[in-house]
């Protein structure tokens, strides 16, 4: 089955849309950040999927072995960097939410909006 063969990419697409929907639809700032994390994780899955070579192992050259098949290590390295970026983004986002809670007393989008309408 061609369609099922792309199983990982289907999961990637579904996770991506779930994340994006959560970011847009939820009013709670923490839930928005959760959505953002899911959204980013979906992309990590895409990178990890594409580096897989069937039957491939870790790219370490063994003495004497001639017909080894390796998985591509580069996307893994890239995504390691992207995971760090994602974690930092979430950390900065959470720090901002904490300060919003301290100054506005709420993390609901509409309540923050209303608080600024009546200065």
């Amino acid at each position: 089955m061609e369609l099922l063969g792309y199983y990982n990419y289907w999961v990637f697409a579904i996770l991506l849309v779930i994340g994006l929907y959560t970011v847009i639809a939820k009013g709670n700032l923490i839930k928005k950040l959760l959505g953002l994390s899911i959204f980013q994780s979906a992309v990590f899955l895409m990178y990890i999927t594409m580096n897989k070579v069937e039957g491939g192992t870790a790219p370490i050259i063994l003495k004497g072995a001639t017909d080894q098949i390796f998985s591509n290590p580069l996307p893994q390295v890239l995504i390691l960097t992207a995971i760090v970026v994602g974690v930092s983004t979430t950390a900065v986002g959470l720090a901002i939410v904490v300060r919003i809670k301290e100054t506005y007393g709420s993390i609901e989008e509409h309540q923050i909006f209303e608080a600024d309408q009546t200065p």
Partner: protein
Amino acid sequence: MSLVQHLSALQVVVPLLSAPLIVLLRPPGLAWAAATATSLMAFTIAIALAIGVSNGNNFAYEMGSWPAPYGITLGVDAFSAILLLITTGASSFALVGGKRSIDSQVEASRQPLFYSAWLLLLAGLVGIVVATDAFNIFVFMEISSLASYVLIAGGPDRRALPAVFKYLIMGTIGATFYLIGVGLIYMMTGTLNLADMAVRIQDVSDQSPILVAAGFITIGLALKAAVFPLHLWLPNAYTHAPHAVTVFLAACATKVALYVLIRFDFIVFQPNLAGHALQFAYFLMPLALLAIIVASAAALFEPNLKRLLAYSSVAQIGYISLGASLVSKAGLTASVLHIFNHSLAKGALFLSVACLAMGFSSTRLEALAGAGRTMPWTMAAFTIAGLSLIGVPGTAGFISKWYLISAVLNEGALGVGLAAVIVVSSLMAAVYIWKVIEVAYFQLPHDGSTAVREAPIELLAVTGLAALANIYYGLFSDVPVSLSSDAAQLLLGVTP
């Protein structure tokens, strides 16, 4: 290797290494001094690079001597030289003049962290500009974005927090879209080096992942660049950020994202994808026109000076993308030139806003009544920069609008309509700048603000210098014009 050959690497390394060291400088004033010295050094490097590029030098730098496409190469050409100049220049101007403005808005104990984030933002922005590798661009983009979230939220205004949260969400979505696009291209071509990508993409240019990637990359970068209608994060973020930060961000941050958009598109996609020029123009041109009209109209009715100028920035991004959407040498020249000239004008305008904010308690227009009497030098600088924004002859803004109008008139009947839009929106700019002038010069000061004095001398001096630069580059425009036309040639792949 002589020092000159290391310049493109030093451009990033100097601010990147200074940033963590500055956190340790606790005595008051020291962090500022170190950050300013670093920024000035980066500015000097950028000037040296720009001079070298005009003399035809090649600044490709292989990190660790690993050759491309396997190693990572940094490079500077005419297009990046202009971006480096405005980025380091804006940072230096804002830091030299902004000390007392920052002192009044950021607590002393947090200042070392604030300046550290500032240098990270600088390192990220120049990193994007010198990188020639799609993934490096992503990493530097996130360094600069994370630092800018911290800087915007660093002020005393609590409304900055929801604004920066929105910016964080939209900025991250933009960067992740870009990452998806880069991943899809890597999947098809197996390379991340832009020049190598442009060669290898030829074999697969008709496959759907490449088209999807082009879409993701364009939309993601357009979000970062605040191309209309993806600009919603920009006005509030600029309005509530500390004034010095607004100077820095408004002069260069969105333009660096636009730089990546233009560069990626013209180097990788434009020569290789069938019918891409038309799709690019159909996508970008309507958005550019809407940005020019709608954002100018929003600025007309805006009572807060900072948000007024922020909306005007969205309109100016429209001009830049309009030039690029013509996909012609004249259009790209105008586009690159406007990147340069607009940051001169907007930098000077936001510096005057920083001056005004030192004297007046609010940046709302009605609070600024009589500023022409109490702060005559500041308002003189504001007026000059405002004229440059409108595009009055003799100022830098006129030069790039002239080039833009000549470029659109090459397009035949469509061009006449485009030129009409540019003229109408210039008139709108005249109206919203006039609103400020009218309040400042033709209204009497309020009772509370008669004792307002001129801004601190160093801030005033920098503001005046920025305003004079608008006149200087309006009269002697050879250097930016020749760099811009070199950049346009480079992007279109035409040998000079």
